[in-house]
């Protein structure tokens, strides 16, 4: 490099002696370094602006996603909502074998009714009983099952009380 002096270099332009040459980077290298730094800085700047603010709050994902997923309105009201008005029915159920059954298992989605009692809940049919109690060899043996065709009666509720199944007809 010493043999071919660079006419562009400031050292050459200033006409300085060879003693100071060793301290200067060649101009093309300086340009390369500046270009690299520029690319890295603009990448970092773009990433800083484009990455969502909450990214990395809990981990390698958008922290705000948790709140956004949680923001959806529930559909089923839940047993606690029924208990606010119908506590006497729930007390009855709690004594019988249907104590583990939730209100909305049979009565269907009742959120509209829970929010406004004037909205009537969904009307029930006997098929709700059969859905669980129809005999099926895959059902566990402890579970009460009937063969609907061989079972006496037209309607389940003629004999059985769904809220107090222990009361034998």
């Amino acid at each position, binding site marked *: 490099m010493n043999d071919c002096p660079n006419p562009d270099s400031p050292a050459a332009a200033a006409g300085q002696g060879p003693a100071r040459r060793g301290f200067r980077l060649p101009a093309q290298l300086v340009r390369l370094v500046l270009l690299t730094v520029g690319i890295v800085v603009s990448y970092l700047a773009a990433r*800083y*602006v484009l990455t969502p603010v909450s990214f990395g709050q*809990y981990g390698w*994902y958008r922290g705000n996603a948790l709140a956004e*997923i*949680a923001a959806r309105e529930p559909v*089923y009201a*839940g047993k606690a909502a029924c208990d606010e008005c119908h506590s006497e029915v729930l007390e009855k159920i709690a004594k019988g074998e249907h104590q583990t059954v939730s209100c*909305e298992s049979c009565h269907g989605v009742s959120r509209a009714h829970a929010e406004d009692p004037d909205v009537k809940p969904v009307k029930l049919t006997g098929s709700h009983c059969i859905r*669980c109690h129809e005999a099926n060899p895959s059902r566990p043996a402890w579970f009460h099952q009937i063969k609907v065709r061989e079972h006496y009666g037209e309607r389940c509720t003629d004999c059985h009380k769904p809220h107090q199944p222990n009361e034998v007809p």
Partner: protein
Amino acid sequence: MKRPLTRRHWLTTLGSALAGVMSLALARKAKAAVQKVLASAPAPKGYDPAKHRWLMQIDVDRCIGCGLCVEACKTENHVPPEPTYFRTWVERYIVKKPKPGSDTPRGEVVVDSPNGGMHFSSALVPREEIMRSFFVPKLCNLCEHSPCSQVCPVGATFETPDGVVLVDPKYCIGCGFCVQACPYGCRFLNPITHTAEKCTLCYHRITRGLRPACVEVCPGEARIFGDLKNPVANDPIQRFIATKRVMALKPYLGTGPRVLYAGLDEEVR
């Protein structure tokens, strides 16, 4: 580099660099503000993911195969109605009697889940051919080292601090890697949004103090749900693990499934 570096030159460069950095910070603040305004609905107030650790357990002996959980999940989460998309489903296992003269202790195993097990028919195999039969509810196994999160190329699916694996629908690019990665088949691509979907453990319900929809409607308490960090009196999940012999699905894969099953059998995968 033709001009000599003067003080003015340096000051100008430094000043513009500072201005650039400050405008970046401002842009970020403005973006955060816009994001806050555009958020559709506020999340439940006062919910801190670090203070909960949700868990689901399944008691196979208590499942009666009514399919209410499957139906409730579809209703609660607006899962597409086509019979191939489920966030939770119920499988029926039928172990047939061994053929006469064969030296095996049990016969063929038949597994089915018609329409996700929403309405099981009673006669798939004649009763006299059945050695034993049972139902197994399936859902996301809430893996501690979830393969679905590991393969996601954009960070759209993740394990939350409260123990749920969620999908960020705004980030998901619908590549389907996670659908293939899940060894439990718990994921699908939503045909409308074209993003990956799965059981969220009803995240919008549990953050409000409600139970997941499937747990809510399960008539036999086959699904036991609770919070490990906030045990209640006579805690059902503690009672379950103390009184039952429990097992996770495919533990040998090292996914660390957190959903525990009681009453599992050899056939169940």
